């Protein structure tokens, strides 16, 4: 694994990254790009589970945690959907295919796809770039379709242009039997004949039955209102999973900054069941 | 590692204001007036653009001497920029001296666009001074050293 000059003599610390090569860049929206990354030999960097994250870095620029948006069932590469919003992401958006970066991970827990979610009807609710971690689960579920019940996907964004992975949504997810996709955008827009409105209100309109396990990810304000709406609709907190994001440096629960109470988002999270979050101090 | 004992080649950073000193350097060049190649010129819009941190940073990155050239007092393209620069550099140089950095590693010289001769003479003089002082070790960052 280690590609350093030590020749495999030292046990590599988890803080030492691997070199990754960008093999594909897709422009999803004006400010989101999806990067496909493999190891130098062309192989996948590591195995992960849906919901897990990795530290992506450009030496001299910065390092940050990103959720892995590709499914573990993909045996060739990992993908990261990255929104441009800071120093590192700005730099990443300027990179081209063939350039190298460093990756370490995977870190954190995963959605319980092989335990609690197995056999369940699933409802995915995502907003904006919040689709990134859920896409990993959705594709995992679609690839192992027989293990899960119905799949409903509710995805909203600011505008038509801000819908991430639209091509895959339309060409794969919408065409998979037993999968219902509901798209919405915040404001009316020319050329859009779908639903218009915020995700939480659309959710209430859709009147889902409560026999589903819900996976939510999106901006904090959306999560807040979605959770409230789910409560009104009769969902229990134990039926809802979400994934959190805080400032991280080490990724292994040691650098001390991504804690919410005694839990570290990088190690004990990022996936939490909503009743677990309720027991934590409201600092996220 | 191969160690070669060669003659000391100082690294000199010269911040030159765009309007006077850079043109002065240009004139020195086009007049074929020689000055050592050890001088690396950084063009700045005005001598007062030079933040004291720039000087320190140059030393950190391996400079052995730093010189700031600007328009003569009274001739600043922006009217007063070099007056501020003058105060700033006076205080900075005095502080560096106070910290025990060898006097002479820093210098300010006013060079107009017509003073190609002065530019080349100043640089020759400055480089000679740095040769005399030797390598900068008091203001070095070991992380940037070989």
């Amino acid at each position, binding site marked *: 694994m280690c590609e350093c000059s030590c020749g495999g003599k030292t046990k590599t610390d988890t803080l030492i990254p691997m070199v990754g090569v960008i093999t594909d860049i897709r422009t999803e929206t004006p400010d989101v790009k999806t990067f496909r990354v493999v190891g130098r030999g062309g192989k996948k960097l590591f195995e992960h589970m849906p919901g897990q994250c990795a530290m992506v870095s450009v030496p001299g620029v910065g390092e940050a945690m990103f959720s892995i948006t590709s499914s573990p069932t993909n045996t060739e590469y990992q993908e990261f959907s990255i929104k441009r919003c800071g120093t590192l992401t700005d730099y990443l958006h300027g990179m081209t295919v063939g350039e190298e970066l460093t990756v370490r991970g995977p870190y954190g827990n995963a959605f319980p796809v092989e335990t609690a979610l197995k056999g369940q009807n699933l409802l995915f609710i995502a907003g904006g770039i919040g689709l990134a971690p859920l896409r990993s689960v959705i594709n995992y579920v679609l690839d192992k379709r027989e293990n899960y019940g119905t799949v409903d996907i509710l995805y909203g964004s600011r505008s038509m242009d801000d819908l991430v992975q639209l091509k895959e949504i339309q060409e794969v997810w919408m065409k998979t039997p037993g999968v219902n996709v509901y798209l919405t955008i915040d404001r009316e827009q020319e050329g859009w004949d779908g639903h218009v409105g915020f995700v939480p209100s659309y959710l209430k309109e859709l009147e889902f039955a409560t026999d589903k396990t819900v996976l939510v990810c999106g901006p904090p304000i959306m999560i807040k209102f979605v959770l409230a709406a789910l409560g009104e609709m009769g969902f229990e907190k134990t039926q809802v999973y979400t994934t959190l994001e805080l400032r991280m440096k080490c990724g292994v629960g040691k650098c001390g900054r991504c804690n919410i109470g005694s839990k570290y988002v990088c190690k004990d999270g990022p996936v939490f069941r909503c009743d677990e979050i309720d027991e934590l101090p409201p600092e996220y | 590692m191969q160690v070669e004992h060669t003659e000391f080649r100082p690294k000199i950073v010269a911040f030159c204001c765009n309007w006077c000193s850079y043109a002065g350097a240009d004139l020195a060049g086009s007049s074929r007036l020689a000055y050592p190649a050890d001088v690396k010129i950084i063009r700045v819009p005005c001598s007062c653009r030079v933040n*004291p941190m720039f000087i320190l940073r140059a030393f950190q990155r391996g400079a052995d001497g730093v010189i700031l050239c600007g328009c003569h007092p009274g001739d600043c393209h922006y009217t007063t920029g070099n007056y501020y620069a003058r*105060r700033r550099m*006076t*205080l900075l140089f005095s*502080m560096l001296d*106070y910290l025990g950095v060898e006097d002479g590693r820093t210098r300010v010289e006013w060079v107009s666009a017509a003073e190609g001769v002065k530019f080349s003479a100043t640089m020759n003089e400055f480089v000679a001074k740095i040769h005399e002082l030797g390598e900068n070790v*008091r*203001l*070095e960052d070991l*992380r940037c050293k070989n």
Partner: protein
Amino acid sequence: MQELITRAKELLADGTVSRVLGWKKGDLGWDPEPAWFEKEEDLEGFVYNPFCGANLSKYLIAAGKLEGRTLVFLKPCDTYSFNQLVKEHRVKKEKTYIIGVGCRGTLDPEKVRAAGMKGIEDAAVDGETLKVATLYGEKEMPLKDALLDRCLVCKGKTHVAYDELIGAQAGEEAGPGELAGDRFAGVERLEALPPKERFAFWQGQLSKCIRCNACRNACPACSCLKCVFDSSQFDSSQKANADTFEEQMFHIIRAYHVAGRCTDCGECSRVCPQGIPLHLLNRKFIRDINTFYGEYQAGADTESRAPLTDFTLEDVEPGIVSKRGGGR
């Protein structure tokens, strides 16, 4: 002290001020903490003694954002910082009510404790003597052995801004101690050394730095919302003392950023956990400004232009440093 409490209660009661910024008794006698009082009864915990070294003016930046006026107790030195903050529009005078308190010098708890005082309960200055009430009875020590370094060279007892004075008179003399007023002796001693020794001195001192930023955060002149050292792009990182160069860079830049604005309140040296004489850097700038550009005391008023945002056509050239014998 009772007088201060009574007056503070009056001002709270008649609504002149909404809160009081002062000091509160600590657990150990030598560690009073800066404290905010909002109710009259809270003021029972108020304390003012020579251990109250903290300069409260910096807290006024926060106080200015609150409703109503804040009563603050300022020692003579602290009022300079206050003026400087007013000048820089960080603090509004009309939001503040200043009671200038008398000062006979503030103490360095480490010095007092090092002199063998244990179980300190209270301290009072009596002329040249410090009387310390301890668990083991009343003890005495020479005041000059207990004062903070900054107070040994006291620059004056004049309050330059106040609404009223308690326990102080206008125009008091600097002191106590024979060094009073001689702020630049330390700088001059250093200047007289050969460069090599000066370098060794600073290298020794600055290499102790643990980059806790206490000097910056306690400094009333360091009032930037976002500090240059907080930038990840900056070459001298705020929290890693990675290289000796970086130590120098950090402290030169910090001192430079307050050059011409530093009132010499001495908080930086007081708060430094490693006892680095940071005031020697600030005073060097002050001294240079005085010699090159004329006497200037930051914070003496609220209008004058700071030396680094000003110039004259006849200013000395930077070459003066060598001419007057730089590199001695």
